[in-house]
C-alpha cells in the first residue's frame, strides 16, 4: 500500500490533515469511544497552544515554504516553551524539516533598556497582559537579529539552508502572526491491528499512560483536533482567521505497506463528517489568505 493522496511523511511517520468546516457536528466524535470498523478513540486531554510566528518583512520564509514560531503549550498549569522551524510537507526537493529548540528560559530580550526573560516576553504577548505589547514584539524581533548566528537549532538550520541555497539570506525576522489553538488529543486503537513492536526498547518509557497500562494494545494513531484563531500582526492589518483541523498521525511501527488502518480510519472519519484534506500548514493558509485580501 502506498500512502500518498494527502498523507505527509517525515521521520518515518505518516500524518494527514483534514479540514473541519462544521465544528459543531464534528465535536461529538470526541464524546464517543467506538468509532466504527473496530476503531476506538481514547480522548485524554485538551491543551492550549499559543503561537507567535516570525518572518521577514516580505514573508521570505512563507515564500520558501517554511514557518518559524515560538510556541507556549499549557497543560495542567504548566507552561512549556519551544522555538520551532518547520517546512511545508510537500516542499519539492527538501526533506521535511522540523527543528525544535527548548529551554528558552535561559534567554532574555531587551525592552526599553530593561532585560526580561524571553518567556516572560512571550507571556506578555500571548496574554496581552501588558500595555506595551508592541515593545515586546520589537524586543522579540531584536532578539532574533541578535541571536541569528547563535547556537540555536532553528537558526542553525536556517543558516544551513542559506548555505545550501535552499533559501535566500534571511534578514530581519519579526513577529508577523499570533495564534491560539485549543487542541483535543486522542489515541486510536483497533484490536484488528495488534502485535506492533516499538522501534527501540527505551520507547517503552515514552509510551502514554494508557498503553503502559494496556500493554497488549497497539498504539496505532494519534489524533489532534485543533480549533485555532489567528491574528495578523501588522500595523495596518489585524485580520483574524479561524482554522479548524483534524490531524491523524501514525504511531505504530508496522511496515508502510501494512498501514492500511491509516487509510481505513481516515476514510471513515472524512466521509462521515465531510472533511477534506488540507495540504498546507496553518501558517501558510493564513498568510496566503492575507496576501489575497
Amino acid at each position, binding site marked *: 500500500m502506498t500512502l500518498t493522496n494527502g498523507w505527509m511523511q517525515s521521520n518515518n511517520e505518516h500524518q494527514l490533515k483534514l479540514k473541519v468546516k462544521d465544528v459543531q457536528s464534528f465535536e461529538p466524535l470526541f464524546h464517543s469511544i467506538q468509532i466504527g470498523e473496530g476503531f476506538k478513540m481514547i480522548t485524554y486531554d485538551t491543551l492550549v497552544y499559543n503561537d507567535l510566528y516570525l518572518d521577514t518583512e516580505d514573508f521570505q520564509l512563507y515564500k520558501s515554504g517554511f514557518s518559524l514560531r515560538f510556541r507556549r503549550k499549557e497543560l495542567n498549569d504548566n507552561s512549556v516553551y519551544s522555538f520551532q522551524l518547520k517546512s511545508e510537507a510537500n516542499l519539492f526537493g527538501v526533506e521535511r524539516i522540523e527543528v525544535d529548540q527548548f529551554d528558552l528560559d535561559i534567554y532574555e530580550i531587551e525592552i526599553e533598556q530593561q532585560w526580561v526573560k524571553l518567556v516572560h516576553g512571550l507571556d506578555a504577548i500571548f496574554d496581552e497582559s501588558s500595555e506595551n505589547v508592541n515593545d515586546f514584539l520589537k524586543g522579540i524581533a531584536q532578539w532574533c537579529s541578535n541571536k541569528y*548566528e*547563535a*547556537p540555536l537549532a532553528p537558526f542553525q538550520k536556517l543558516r*544551513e539552508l542559506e548555505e545550501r541555497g535552499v533559501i535566500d539570506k534571511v534578514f530581519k525576522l519579526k513577529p508577523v502572526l499570533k495564534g491560539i489553538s485549543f487542541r483535543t488529543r486522542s489515541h486510536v486503537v483497533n484490536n484488528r491491528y495488534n502485535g506492533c*513492536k516499538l522501534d527501540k526498547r527505551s520507547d517503552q518509557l515514552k509510551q502514554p499512560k494508557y498503553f503502559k497500562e494496556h500493554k497488549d494494545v497497539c498504539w496505532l494513531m494519534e489524533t489532534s483536533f485543533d480549533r485555532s484563531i489567528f491574528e495578523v500582526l501588522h500595523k495596518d492589518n489585524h485580520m483574524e482567521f479561524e482554522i479548524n483541523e483534524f490531524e491523524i498521525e501514525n504511531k505504530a511501527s508496522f511496515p508502510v505497506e501494512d498501514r492500511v488502518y491509516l487509510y481505513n480510519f481516515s476514510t471513515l472519519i472524512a466521509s462521515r463528517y465531510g472533511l477534506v484534506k488540507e495540504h498546507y500548514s496553518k501558517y501558510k493558509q493564513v498568510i496566503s489568505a492575507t496576501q489575497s485580501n
Partner: protein
Amino acid sequence: MFKIFLLIISILNGVTLHAQISRGSIADYGNVIDLYYVNDSLNLAKIRTTANFLTDKSCNFLNGNKLPKRKKAFIRHVQFLTEAIEESYFKGKDLSPFQRECLYELHFYYLAFRAASVRKFNRVNFFDKLRMLYNTYKHCSGRKVKITDGIEQVIHSDSPFWHSFTEVRPVDRFDYIAKQKKIKVHKKMVVLMDKIGNDGSAPKVRVSDLDLDNEWNLKWGDEVHTDVVGSRIFSALGYDVDHPYAFLKDQVYLVFDEYSEVKSLEALKVKLKDQYGFNLEPFVSSYGVVNVEMTDSIQSLRSFEGLFYCTFKKCALEARPDRVKRIGPFMLEGIKLEENALLRGALIAHAFIDNWDTRTRNTLLSTVHKGKHRYRVSAVFSDLGTSLGVSVSPINGDFKVGLVNQLAWDVCERKGNKIRVMSRMNAEPIPYKQADYHDLFFVAKQIEKIDSIALRNIVLAANWPYPLAELYFHKLAARRASILQSFLIEDENPIYFNRHISIKENNEWIVKDGVLLVNYNGEDHPEGWISKKGRFRNYGH
C-alpha cells in the same frame, strides 16, 4: 562474618549526605580568555563558532574524522554556557568570574570534543604500540623526583578535576559520587543485552538497566576486580571516576530480548570472538530460558519469562548512567594542565595502584546532570583496571593485569635528595612529566587518609576470593606505607601489613611468604591469577 562486621561498621558510621558536588573553578589554563577577545572586547563570532561547532548536528566531520554524536544534554549545557557568556556582550559588561568560568569550560569542551574525533583516540596502531612499549620501559628503574624544601600546607580548591569532599569519608566517596549520578546497583543484577562493544581491548557488551534509562558495560577478563579497586582508590583521593562493580557466579543475569543485537549465547560468543578475539565460553555459568521458578526467586526476571538468559562465573558491570555525558579526553595539548597540581599529583595515585594504561584517552571530560536541565563539568579518570600487577609481553603484543605476584610491595624509595617512584606506565601525558615533589606530596597526604577500614572496604568491593583479597590488602597497605615513609608523612592511620603473609587451606599453601602459589579456584576464575597470558592470548584458553 568479618565482611558483615565491616558492613555494620560502615552503616553505623554512616555517610553524610550533602548538597550536590560543587563545580569548583577551572581557572585560566593557557590564557583561554585571550583566544576569545579582540581589541579588549569579547569576540562574539569566535564564541559562536566554538558553540556552533559543539551543537550543530549538521556538522559531522572534522578533518575527515567523524565527530562523536552530540547528546541533547550536552547541547543544552553548551547553549547555557554560551548564553551566560553572551549576556556580558549584549549588556556591555565585563565578564563576571562565573562567566569567565563558562568561557573556560566552553573552550575545554571544544578541545575535548575535537580530540574525541581524532583517529588516534579510537584505534591503536603499530606506532602507538611502539610508543607504549617505549614508555613502559623508559622508567623501569623508577621516576626520580627531586625533593624540595619548604612544604607548605597547601589547600587546593575544588575544581572539575578534584574535590576535597571534606565531609565525606574517603571510603564513602565512590558511593557518594555514584548517588549523584543516580547509579543504582543491586546484589543481583538483571540486565538486557543491547550491542557488542566496539572500543578498547577488554571484551565487553553494552546492556540496558531495567529502568531503560541507564546503561552498563558488561565486561569479562582480568580487569573485573582491578578496575573496582583502582576506581575506589582514586575516588577516595578526591578524583572523579567511572563506576565499575565486580560480580561473582550467577549474580548477573543477561537477558536477550527482541531488541538485542544478538539473540542467543551462541551468537554472543561469535560476535565477541570477531570483535575482541575473546572466547566467552570459560566464563559462562548457565544458559537457558527464564522460567516461573526463576521469577519466583528473582522478581526482576518476571517480565522476561520465556526469553533466553545467561549468567557468568564472574563479570563486571561498569555504569553508563544517563546523567553523565562523556565528551572527550581532558589531558590535551592546548590546555596547559601542568598548572594543575592535582592532575600532576595523580601520578603518585597511578603509581599507588600500579596503573599501566595512563594514556590521555583514559581521561574523560564529562557533563553530569544536576537536575532541572543544569549540568556541571567533571573530569573523570577512566579505565583504572590495567593495574595491581601488570605483565607486558612485547613479543606477543599481550598484557595481563591483576597479577598479584607482579605487584611490588613498595612504590617509593627515598634516596638522598630524590624520591624514586617505581611504576611502569605506557604513557606520560604532560602533567605527569611536570609533576614535582610538592604535587606528589599533596596527593600522598590524601593517600595517608585511607585508613584500614577504608582499604578493607575497597578490597572487599573487588570480590576477590579470600587469599587474593588478603594478599592484595597487605600489599596495598605496604605500598601505602612506602609512599608515606618516602615523603616523610606521619601516618595517623597506620595499617598493619605482613610481607611474609602465608595462607593455608585444606593443608595446601595458597599463599606463602607473600607469594601466591596456586591458581586459586581456577575453575571459577578463568582469567587465572598466575599465568601471564592475557586477553590477546585468551587467558590461555
